[in-house]
């Protein structure tokens, strides 16, 4: 297969990344339930080890090619031509890193806050990690689907068992929404399989041409799965419930990684497999994105619950991501991918921060807070960084991503560009207002006498701060990963006529 490269590392790193957390989870089974300290230490060790291993991907990735790297391919079900086929390109590699990093932070943030069924909690977390990595690495459509669905089980349990008061409702809603979308995609996958001559190999499927009518049907079948995950405007209602009720670690993983999978699905499957339908449907998708940006933003203004506000802000931010992707130009797509990372980092950090203060006050109602800045100064200064990154202030990562997306958006449709730019203003509105209500004003009863954040908590937030400024000041470290792959993707979508210069010009300006 000419679309793949040999594994530069010489050992099956992707399989190891997938297996390691699973082995850790199996190991946890044998630790006594009462020995909570050992359970936590083992989970931390496993997740840190996985993260360190994944750094090798970062350092050994060949940025000069769009080919799949670190490829592994074994027969899985020969009769149906299914393979255990893994590989990474510039679009997916960074998400694997994000997933491994976020898992480490999730283990750290759950150190004290998970008080019951600790063993099951960490098993779920580790199983979830391996499924997440699997989703981003799979190059076989069925293998992808397997990981995609398998992820539901631990996530359902995380929300439903360790979540807030309304957790059962949120968990079931999350599960059913995602399942309905996914099964429709399954039908689409099978139809594609037969049309393409019995193949699930994504790289092979990408090279074929499909009739427009079929593309259109498949586009909406895939849309059902991916749009629910993103979540895009009409099917976003599971997200506020799930995010709000999930335990901190669950919210962080949901926000940082899980909802990225929807956008990733569009990039990996919808665009390259169904280029004509994607082009034709782009205006619809742009419109839905703009609605999500503005509607999500306005709803944020009315929220009284901290976590719910951040959850709705995700709807708005993910609207930017889908806007960028369906702008179908280099700036838009690269901005979209970068913004996916940014959103993972920033919203992940915001949920971590909310988790930290929730552990102390046990309330999520914004009105219960006030004057936190005078009690917890370090915490307040970190939170302002995340707030600014979320708004997209220059020098933070949010600016780079949103700027690229808006550039792409303007090129695709001026209306979309103008309207979504107003979404940034709304975003500044609700985030700053939130900050004001929680951190300034008079110190409220519930907040008085709180202890500032501990070293462990600081450790969970610090990586995010570093990443925010790193991407904000020198985005090229990350953008350089994706140039060839995005180029290749756009050639497939636009039929080989995408200008390659623009993005370089922008990175020049940003520098």
């Amino acid at each position, binding site marked *: 297969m000419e679309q793949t490269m040999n594994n530069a590392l010489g050992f099956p790193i992707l399989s190891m990344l997938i297996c390691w957390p699973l082995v850790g989870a199996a190991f946890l089974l044998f630790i006594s339930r009462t020995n909570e300290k050992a359970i936590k230490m083992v989970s931390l060790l496993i997740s840190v080890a996985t993260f360190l291993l994944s750094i090798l991907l970062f350092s050994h990735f060949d940025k000069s090619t769009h080919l799949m790297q670190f490829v592994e391919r074994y027969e899985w079900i020969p*009769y149906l031509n299914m393979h255990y086929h893994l590989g990474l390109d510039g679009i997916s590699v960074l998400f694997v890193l994000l997933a491994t990093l976020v898992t480490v932070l999730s283990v750290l943030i759950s150190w004290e806050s998970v008080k019951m069924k600790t063993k099951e909690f960490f098993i779920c977390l580790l199983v979830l990690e391996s499924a997440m990595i699997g989703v981003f690495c799979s190059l076989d459509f069925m293998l992808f689907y397997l990981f995609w669905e*398998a992820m539901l*089980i631990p996530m*359902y349990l995380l929300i*439903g068992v360790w979540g807030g008061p309304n957790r059962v409702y949120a968990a079931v809603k999350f*599960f*059913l929404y995602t399942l309905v979308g996914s099964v*429709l995609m399954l*039908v689409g996958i099978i139809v594609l399989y037969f049309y393409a001559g019995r193949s699930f190999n994504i790289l092979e499927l990408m090279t074929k041409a499909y009739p427009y009518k079929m593309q259109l049907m498949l586009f909406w079948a895939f849309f059902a799965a991916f749009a629910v995950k993103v979540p895009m405007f009409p099917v976003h209602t599971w997200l506020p419930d799930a995010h709000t009720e999930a335990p901190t670690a669950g919210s962080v993983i949901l926000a940082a990684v899980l909802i990225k999978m929807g956008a990733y699905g569009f990039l990996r499957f919808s665009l390259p497999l169904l280029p004509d339908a994607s082009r034709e449907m782009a205006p619809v998708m742009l419109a839905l994105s703009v609605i999500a940006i503005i509607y999500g933003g306005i709803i944020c203004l009315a929220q009284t619950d901290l976590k719910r506000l951040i959850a709705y802000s995700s709807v708005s931010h993910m609207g930017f991501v889908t806007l960028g992707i369906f702008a179908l130009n280099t700036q838009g797509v690269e901005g979209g991918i970068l913004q996916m990372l940014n959103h993972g980092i920033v919203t992940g950090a915001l949920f971590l921060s909310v988790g930290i203060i929730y552990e102390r006050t046990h309330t999520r109602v914004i009105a219960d807070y006030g004057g936190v800045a005078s009690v917890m100064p370090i915490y307040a200064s970190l939170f302002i960084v995340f707030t600014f990154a979320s708004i997209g202030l220059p020098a933070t990562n949010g600016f780079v991503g949103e700027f690229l997306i808006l550039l792409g958006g303007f090129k695709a449709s001026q209306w979309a560009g103008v309207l979504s730019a107003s979404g940034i203003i709304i975003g500044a509105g609700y985030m700053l207002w939130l900050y004001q209500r929680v951190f300034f004003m008079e110190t409220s009863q519930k907040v008085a006498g709180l202890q500032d954040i501990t070293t462990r908590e600081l450790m969970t937030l610090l990586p995010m701060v570093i990443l925010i400024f790193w991407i904000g000041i020198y985005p090229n470290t990350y953008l350089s990963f994706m140039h060839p792959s995005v180029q290749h993707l756009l050639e497939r979508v636009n039929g080989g006529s995408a200008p390659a210069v623009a993005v370089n010009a922008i990175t020049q300006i940003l520098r």
Partner: protein
Amino acid sequence: MPLIMPDLKPVMPEIVMTVIAIGMLLAELVIKRKETIGFLTIIGAGIAAFTLAGSMGTTFGGMYVSDGYSTFFKLIFLVNLILTILMSSRYLETLKINFGEYYSLILFATLGMMLMASAADIIVLYLGLELMALSTYILAGFIRYDIKSNEAAMKYLLLGAFASAILLYGTSMIYGLTGTTNLRDIAVYIAKAELASNPVLMLSMIFFAVAFSFKIAAVPFHMWAPDAYEGAPTPITAFMSVGPKAAGFAVLGRVFLTAFGSVRMDWAAIFIPIAILTMAVGNIVALSQTNIKRMLAYSSIAHAGYMLLGVIAGTPDGLASMLNYMFIYAFMNIGAFAIIIMLRTETFKGEDIADYQGLSKTHPMAAALMLIFMFSLTGIPPMAGFMGKFYLFMSAINAGYTWLVIVAVLFSAISAYFYLRIVMLMYMKEPKETVQLNSSPGVALALVVTVGAVLFIGILPSKFLLFARLAASAF
């Protein structure tokens, strides 16, 4: 006329089963420990399974055929038999219905199923069906002092007899039309006489479809299932939910693909509405159940609907996917029933869904296993249930029934709600009262086997798919 000894090799497994069944009936007089009888029964079933391998062939003048298809089903029946017996002994003791006839009745019922799977002639089919049905009626009513068990047996008997009558009616019509009861000869005659749109043929096909739909509990002929499942002793419920259903599918596949293979479009038109109704009623009514055995009864109705897709596809792949699903379904369903059996003690019924509340706190192991079975029944990877459904959907799409598959996946998504409810109660609620587990080595072993199979087939299904495909290649 000299008497020619027929070739006995193809019926060897059945002969072994008959000998053991009669032997167990007699052994019950001398052996006082019922566990020993159970143990001997398992060994006997093992021997029968062993003889399966060398039994290929046709005998009794073409009335009886042993091929890959029948062998695959017989394997399912024997697995079903062994797992049921493993789960039975402690349960029977708990309910004080520990009688030796139980084992020979189960053996006879399984023998009947094996006859059905191998029947190449409608008369043999009927013989097997009655042997299976009569034995199961008795088993369903085995808790003599329990009015619900009596009701289960009665209802099953009355409706079963009705189905048998309809089957005979269909048979007589086909005999009148073609002059034979041999499935192959019927097919030949239909092709030769160009009976494709003959109304009598249509009517007899409808009768066959109705009769078999009773056996596989397809809507609208499912009325007996919830009551029979609820009232019967739980191991028998597990047994009934797999064995007779599999046997029903075995004859359904063979009769319609062999005898009526040339008029596939006609009978597909009969089964498509049945399949849709079955999935709809099974999944939707299951949502409102409060008794877990009833819920699983409706779930098993729904699963029959999925499996019908394989038959409707009418291709070797379709049949193979139906076989494969049946095999997987046997493990995941029996596994779920094994947990229900464990909850039953002398004083505690453990059949309300509410009894599962907080099980993960009191018995984390049992709850984890139930979770795996529930997700498998929903069809979530990496459990085997997903692979089964996936292959079914695939072969139906390949046969051109994409729209039917869309209907099926949507109902399958609905089913997630009631399976998840069990998981939700076990994991997300606090226990009301302490539930005692009535565990025994037999049940434990059955659980190990079923959960092992569910996970293994779910992750590495390759060998099983090939086996099923090979078994279905005769069509």
